[in-house]
């Protein structure tokens, strides 16, 4: 609507002053629309939402809490501890007579928390680190990225196991261990993106206007690389859950009375030859379904935010 005549514009503006401003469609709105058209991703999102809901609402339907022991089942889980509504053990019990249903709820909470919190920390640290490194450039960039290279060269799982052995096994330690290393990839990806964004003219326009370096990073660079970050973060969550599960499977991660998917799967796998397959299958089902959901959502986000689509 280019009108060369300024008086006419002023007049039109006068006429329209009563009207509300036209809503624009932001790139985010566009991406949301594309995401909503991706069936696998939307279904995954719904399932994941249900799993999260289950982990919070589940305890209200539980007959047995995760701390109670059903003495009548203890020792004969294979014959008396199978899933049933009558006994109130919806998912059965483990060898000690603890309710798997409640244990799975507890494990879901902890596994998701580790995954989401770990990814969140990695995203914040990695994004800021990468954006600063890429935007400042030059020697700062060199030094910051060499630090990342050095940290990456350290065998991560080995160090994590050593840390858990030396400093004791706790969720806090696990967080620190996973969080310390997960941001490395993130910072590299973000730095690469920043390098391509920082030479765009709108960054120069902001600099010419007098916006400070930090504001440019937070106001212009970070929102523009958030697409990539969002995709990577959704793929990071299952990675985190996997790592935590692996560590817990080894017996080094989450400790009793807490539990996680990995710990439950480990226990279930250990007793599978006594015909108590439900001890493995229920936590495993939650684990697998959640991971699939995260990967599908990540895929959907990538398709939705891919700028080449436009």
């Amino acid at each position, binding site marked *: *609507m*280019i*009108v*060369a005549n*300024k008086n006419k*514009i*002023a007049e*039109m*503006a006068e006429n*329209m*002053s009563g*009207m*509300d*401003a*036209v*809503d*624009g*469609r*932001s*790139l*985010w709105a566009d991406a949301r629309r594309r995401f909503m058209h991706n069936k696998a991703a939307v279904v995954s999102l719904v399932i994941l939402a249900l799993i999260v809901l289950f982990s919070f609402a589940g305890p209200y339907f539980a007959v047995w809490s995760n701390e109670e022991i059903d003495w009548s089942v203890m020792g004969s889980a294979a014959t008396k501890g199978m899933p049933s509504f009558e006994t109130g053990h919806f998912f059965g019990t483990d060898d000690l007579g603890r309710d798997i249903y409640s244990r799975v709820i507890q494990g879901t909470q902890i596994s998701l928390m580790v995954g989401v919190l770990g990814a969140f920390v990695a995203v914040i640290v990695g994004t800021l680190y990468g954006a600063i490194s890429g935007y400042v450039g030059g020697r700062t960039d060199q030094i910051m990225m060499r630090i990342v290279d050095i940290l990456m060269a350290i065998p991560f799982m080995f160090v994590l196991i050593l840390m858990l052995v030396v400093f004791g096994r706790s969720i806090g330690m696990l967080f620190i261990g996973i969080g310390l290393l997960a941001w490395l990839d993130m910072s590299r990806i973000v730095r690469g993106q920043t390098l391509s964004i920082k030479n*765009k*003219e*709108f960054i*120069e*326009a*902001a*600099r*010419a*206007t*007098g*916006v*400070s370096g930090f*504001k440019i990073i937070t106001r*212009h660079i970070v*929102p*523009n690389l958030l697409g990539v970050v969002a995709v990577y973060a959704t793929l990071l969550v299952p990675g985190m859950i996997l790592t935590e599960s692996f560590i817990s499977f080894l017996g080094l991660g989450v400790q009793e009375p807490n539990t996680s998917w990995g710990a439950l799967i480990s226990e279930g796998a250990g007793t599978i030859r006594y015909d108590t397959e439900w001890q493995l299958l229920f936590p495993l089902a939650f684990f697998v379904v959640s991971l699939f959901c995260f990967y599908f959502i990540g895929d959907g986000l990538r398709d939705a935010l891919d700028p080449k689509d*436009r």
Partner: protein
Amino acid sequence: MSHETIMKVDDLKVYFNVTKRDAMPWTKPDKLKAVDGVSFELKAGETLGIVGESGCGKSTLARAVIRMIPSESGDVMWLGQDLMALDAKEMRARRKEVQMIFQDPLASLDPRMNIGEIIAEPIKTHYPKTPKAEIKKMVEEVMIKVGLLPNLVNRYPHEFSGGQCQRIGIARALILKPKLIICDEPVSALDVSIQAQVVNLLKELQEEMGMALIFIAHDLSIVKHISTRIMVLYLGNMVELADSVDLYKQPRHPYTQALISAVPIPDPLIEKNKELILIEGDLPSPISPPSGCVFRTRCPRVQDICTREKPEFVDAGNGHKVACHFHD
């Protein structure tokens, strides 16, 4: 129009370090002389056109005077203050007096911001305490001024055409009422009819608000239309600086003469009989510019002295400055 000098640039040099492909870490990098000793003055409310072929340092010069690019040496006096002596924070504060318009209209707008936010950014940067309602009013005013309907504030840059995007860029530059706007090829990415609209808009706004313009372009007819004075750059050196009418009527430097003869005239009869001055060869490398006069490798009037001595940038009368041994 007042005639006070707002900007005085003295012997500005911008060199870039170029590392050779097989260079060792300790070898000194080559110096690319992007701008090599440019001096000029800018008066309030005037338009200085800068022309020259690609890679002659037009954009570098414009960015260097406002310290968007570090310069090797030289002074820039802006409203009586030496910009080169300011620290980063003071410099940022002064940026509100000089704004910029860019070549690619869409790329110069942040795709994640709506245009209301884009236009308001300079205010939020320099006057962060301005109440929201006032910002909104200012944005509306400036949008009307550049010919955009104010109810489009919530739209995003990708929803606009190139010409509209350039108007948004102009609105952003205008909102702080700067004393100087640097236009870096503001119309070369637009098609001809839109070019005319944007150039005329700039001209109108200049008359209304009285800011000075530094207008970079490679289209001579547009520069002629908008400029009061024109500077011709060649390989980072000024070859001619004159009043725009004067420069077109009587170009003194052989390079300017060739440039002007190349401007097409929209009349086939005149165009056919026009005498075209062709320049042979390519632009020499700015890493090792020719000795003496930089233009000598391609100049039709070249003599021995051109190799030996660099011509002074002298006044050939009436403020018409030229750098040539044989200006007539």
